[in-house]
């Protein structure tokens, strides 16, 4: 059971690989879980589908959520996470390309803990990922594990 788990929800393989690269560069990506779309992210979090047999007590420390996702949009994933008692308190960071006011507003409205824009410049992107990892995995104290949160 890895305590410092990051769940990265990202459909673009380029962005996914670059994020992984940036995390690894700063030794933050050991326990990285990858979800290629919103549905997979929900399956993982709620231990269903392909993830039906995983240990439900193993919840990620932080979720890095892209907004532009196939099937289920990032905002929809966020809405469902916040509607479920098991994931209601999970820290969610929206990590997205756009900086549209509308997206920021709905992101915070649906309960995102943070909104970070992915810079074009890889150096800056790498810095942003490092700051995020340090903050959410090291500096930030996660919400206490609730009873019944792990079970179905």
């Amino acid at each position, binding site marked *: 059971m890895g305590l410092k788990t990051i769940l990265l929800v990202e459909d*673009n393989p*380029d*962005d996914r690989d*670059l994020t992984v*690269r940036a995390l690894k560069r700063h030794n933050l990506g050991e326990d990285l879980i990858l979800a290629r779309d919103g549905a997979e992210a929900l399956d993982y979090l709620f231990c269903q589908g392909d993830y039906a047999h995983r240990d439900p007590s193993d919840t990620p420390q932080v979720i890095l959520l892209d907004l*532009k996702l196939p099937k289920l949009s990032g905002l929809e994933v966020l809405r469902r996470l916040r509607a479920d008692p098991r994931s209601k308190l999970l820290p969610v960071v929206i990590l*997205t*390309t*756009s*900086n*549209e*006011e*509308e997206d920021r507003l709905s992101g915070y409205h649906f309960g995102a803990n943070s909104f970070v824009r*992915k*810079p*074009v*410049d*890889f*150096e800056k*992107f790498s810095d942003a990922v490092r700051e995020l990892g340090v903050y959410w995995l090291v500096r930030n104290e996660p919400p206490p594990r609730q009873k019944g949160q792990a079970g179905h």
Partner: protein
Amino acid sequence: MNPAPLPASRSGRRNSFARRLLWLTIAVTGAALLAACAAFILYDQITYRRLMVRQLAVEAQVIAANSVSALIFGDPRSAAKTLSTLSASPDLLAAGIYDHRGRLFAFYRRGGAPLLPPSAPPMPPFGQRSWYADGDVILARRITLAGAVAGTVYLRNDMKQLTTRNRHYTEIAFIVWAASLTAAWIFSTAYRRGIAQPIVDLAHTAVFIAHDQDYGLRAQATGRGDEIDSLVEAFNAMLAAIGTRDADLAQARQTLEARVALRTAELTAANRELEAFSYSVSHDLRAPLRGIDGFGQALLEDYGAQMDPTARSYLDRIRAATQRMGVLIDNLLQLARVTRAEMRRENCDLSAMAAAVVEDLRRQDPGRQSEVEIEPGMHAWGDAGLLRIVLENFLGNAWKFTAKREWTWIAFYRANHRNPSEDVFAIRDNGAGFDPAHAGQLFAAFQRLHAATEFPGTGIGLATAQRILHRHGGRAWAEAQLGAGATFYFALPRYTPPLAASS
């Protein structure tokens, strides 16, 4: 149709036209009658007086003729007898005959009358004279015989008859006057209907229309072809014209509203498309750039050792181009955003805003020797977020173009300007300046007056600032000499108190 209560003055107007017409008739009739009666009575009195004097003169002549012999023969009894015939004349009060020496010779007085003829006769100058005394008329006449004065006859008549006559005439005149006025009243009241009623009706119709705004009503024509009929016709024609105009206006407004609704729908659709477009640009154009830059960097890091310097420089250039494109996309998005962003106007402290912007610039470029002068207390009425972008662009521009100086000098101050309706602000620098011949192109998007290699930039910043100023009802312009610094000006409508601009 059931009209709402009308103004109280609608009926029973105190100053009504019909009533005034009636009073006019009565007054004119009364005055004319009064004048006629007075003239008639006056004339009658004058005529009657003359008649009385003439009658008195005849009586005096008769008495003079009959008393000549009595005077000659000194027979007062005969004279008194002659005088006694005057008792047939009821108004004669007293009479007397004097001899040629002026002594009272004989006299008569009506029974009960206290008056006696005077002891000496008042001498008439030319044979005969009459005068009035104490409301009586007196006549004296010489009695002559063969050209010699034999004596004088004196007659005194009272004017009671005249007074009685006058009273009777006045009473009759008053009765006639009153009867005429009554008749005038009755006729006027009866005919008033015919003359004044159409005007009164017209006035009522006008009041109804003014009250109900119902231009479909029409005034009733009299059909007599007089001026009132013309008035009614003209009034109705005006009503018809107003009705037509109202209908035209209503139709024009409907057409306009429909057109506005259509245009609004088109604009809304276009705006939505534009928003979708910039959203897509924001997401989809930037993502591949990050891939190019990221994997370029990965290539350099992981395989840089196996590349020769040329290959590495190519990779560097790929990454530089990618990053420039990223900035370009961001600037374009900002330009698009300031156009459609909703404006929330408030009183903005430009001095404080500029100080914050300069602080950011210094933080990003810590090695720069700079002196930035900001006039304190500069305020403007506008959207704080958008005005900050304006200052970022102008101050950023000044910062950028002073990069090659030994020290940077920038001043932000309120420019003297004569127009009282706007505030003009200036940002002056000691930078590279520009050729004033090209000042007009400065604010067009993508127009650059310097090579990108000399001063980096996308050429969108000033266009964005200008667009924001235009949205605030302001403007921007610049003055410069090549190599001698530049001054950028921007004008904003003067701050209006929140009362007038709160909505």
